[in-house]
């Protein structure tokens, strides 16, 4: 289906505006809200000189719009401050940690969709039967579990007690050395497949499956409930009746026509599901010592490393905005009415 270039351009402009908005809101939170911002930016136990230095760097003696100007400049040039814990530029730390989180979050997202959407369709088709009730309980429970608690419990049972799965990190180091594994994209699963290194692949899979499953619960439940609701609406729409009257077989009406109408709005809210995987990563990476952004942010929070925390949040927001843009464009491709 052809999609107008204007829509894509419009959407990209919106993306830029959103990123801009994120930057401004972050500015308000970090500079305007606190009464003495320099305390936040000067580290855990700042000396008087450090505070003075922070005050100068933040240009706190200047009027707000000047501060904002330099802030945006810093923001766009990648000058996001220095982490007090690692003594590295925040952006550099984040770049190093990003692939781990992206791999985890992507896998969790895929799991959530592959299981969640078909469950929702099944529940809609078998509405008000016991299957529907069962699926409803499973999905609603998924949306009610505190993700960090689930991680702790499953880690306890599967790692500590039963020893089936490893409890920490992305992969066992010795395998990397032994099999001379090389990193290409930063996605261990992908890289190992590209190099045909099955040992590393299996090892990485064993490490990633538990955190990914845990993170996928909430978006899984969400996707299933959403799909079910949308599909029920679609099946109640009048055109399913008329198409039946004109003789289309039921399976065609459901699996070709109604399915498309269902997928379209579900895709529209996929972005939100992805957002839940992001927050899942923030909460769960610490538990599995998964060297991603969530782990970095959690460590930063413990050590009052404010620049690092803010950097992580802004990164997450930007990724979220990008994903939402992609999702919106996909939605417009499927549903021709959206192209305004």
């Amino acid at each position, binding site marked *: 289906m052809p999609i107008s270039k204007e829509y894509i351009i419009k959407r990209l402009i919106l993306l830029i505006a959103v990123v801009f908005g994120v930057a401004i809101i972050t500015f308000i939170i970090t500079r305007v809200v606190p009464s003495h911002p320099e305390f936040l930016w000067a580290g855990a136990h700042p000396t008087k000189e450090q505070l003075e230095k922070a005050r100068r760097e933040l240009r706190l003696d200047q009027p707000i719009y000047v501060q904002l100007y330099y802030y945006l400049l810093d923001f766009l040039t990648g000058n996001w401050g220095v982490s007090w814990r690692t003594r590295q530029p925040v952006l550099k730390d984040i770049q190093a940690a990003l692939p781990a989180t992206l791999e985890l979050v992507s896998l969790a997202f895929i799991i959530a969709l592959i299981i969640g959407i078909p469950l929702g369709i099944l529940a809609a088709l078998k509405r008000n039967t016991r299957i529907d009730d069962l699926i409803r309980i499973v999905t609603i429970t998924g949306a009610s579990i505190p993700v960090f608690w689930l991680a702790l419990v499953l880690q306890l049972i599967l790692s500590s007690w039963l020893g089936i799965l490893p409890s920490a990190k992305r992969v066992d180091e010795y395998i990397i050395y032994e099999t001379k594994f090389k990193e290409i994209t930063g996605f261990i699963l992908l890289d190992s497949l590209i190099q045909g290194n099955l040992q590393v692949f299996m090892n990485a899979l064993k490490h990633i499956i538990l955190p990914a499953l845990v993170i996928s619960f909430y978006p899984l439940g969400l996707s299933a409930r959403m799909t079910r609701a949308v599909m029920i609406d679609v099946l109640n*729409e*009048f*055109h399913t*009746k*008329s*198409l*039946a*009257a*004109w*003789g*289309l*077989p*039921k399976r*065609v009406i459901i699996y*070709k*026509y109604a399915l*498309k*109408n269902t997928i*379209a709005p579900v895709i529209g809210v996929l972005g939100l599901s992805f957002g839940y995987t992001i927050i899942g990563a923030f909460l769960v990476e610490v538990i599995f010592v998964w060297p991603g952004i969530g782990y970095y942010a959690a460590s930063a929070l413990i050590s009052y490393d404010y620049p690092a925390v803010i950097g992580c949040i802004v990164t997450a927001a930007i990724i979220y905005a990008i994903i939402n843009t992609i999702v919106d464009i996909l939605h417009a491709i*499927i*549903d*021709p*009415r959206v192209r305004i």
Partner: protein
Amino acid sequence: MSKTKPLVVENLTIHYYTVDGVIKAVRDVSFDVERGEAVCLVGESGSGKSTIGLAIAGILPENARIINGKILVDGINILELSERELEKIRGREVSMIFQDPAASFNPLFTVGQLLSDIIRYKLGIEDKEELRKRVIEALKIVALPDPERIFNSYPHELSGGMLQRVAIAAALLTNPKIFIADEPTTMLDVTLQFQILNLLQAIRRKFNIAILFITHNLGVAAMICDRIIVIYAGTIVEIGPTNDILRNPLHPYTKKLIESIPRTSAKISRLKYLAGSLHDLREIPRGCIFRPRCDEAFEMCEIETPKLIEIKPRHHVACHKYRVK
């Protein structure tokens, strides 16, 4: 050449199950339609006329139950068919168009895709070129200009009138024996109404199809139908040839219907209307169901339900005023 009538409905009784109770929407309805005949089912909202149409087309909603009766399409009782067999009948022997053309189409598929799919699944034709040719032909039959452009159009890109024509094309793709039209012109403006009605007449003559036309508008019914069935609150109160009914309406309800057609005459008088509203169909009272709104009622009307009696040739009425002694 089969001698069976395309449509015979016998003692049809349909109930709806809702959270507020059981609605006895259609009670003991019987009629038939001959080959090439156009019969109108006339009644107000809630009279059960649409329900009858849905039942014949085989697309009753989930919460409807057929309690009793037969629907014979070309001699076969479709109420006894399995879902698979019924699927074969739909669109092939019986087809239907609806009141809201825009709602009748799936907005995410082009009109061409839909009509091609209908041919593909009903006639087993897979060749894309052949499908496209047939669809374009069908679009031409319903007098749509520029059928190639319409083939590639999405429903929201077409006007209501055009969509209704496409709907007619879709319904006729496989040459059904019975064509049901449920208030097809109600949502269109007057000029379009005439066009659609003329189109239906032309199609009827050309293909000798039996048409069941459902409407609340007696005037529209008069324009297209050979016979009129007047239905009130789930039962038939009068059946007869159109001219007969219009000139000599027998049932008080029919008389009121005719009276309330706005006329542009020299005398400016008050608009006539029928007072009261439809009975609550969860509780069917004793006697004639029209009694509360009838100004010709008498004691008998409260006690016994009137049956359909043939008063004149082919003209039946269910009213105690006319008792064959």
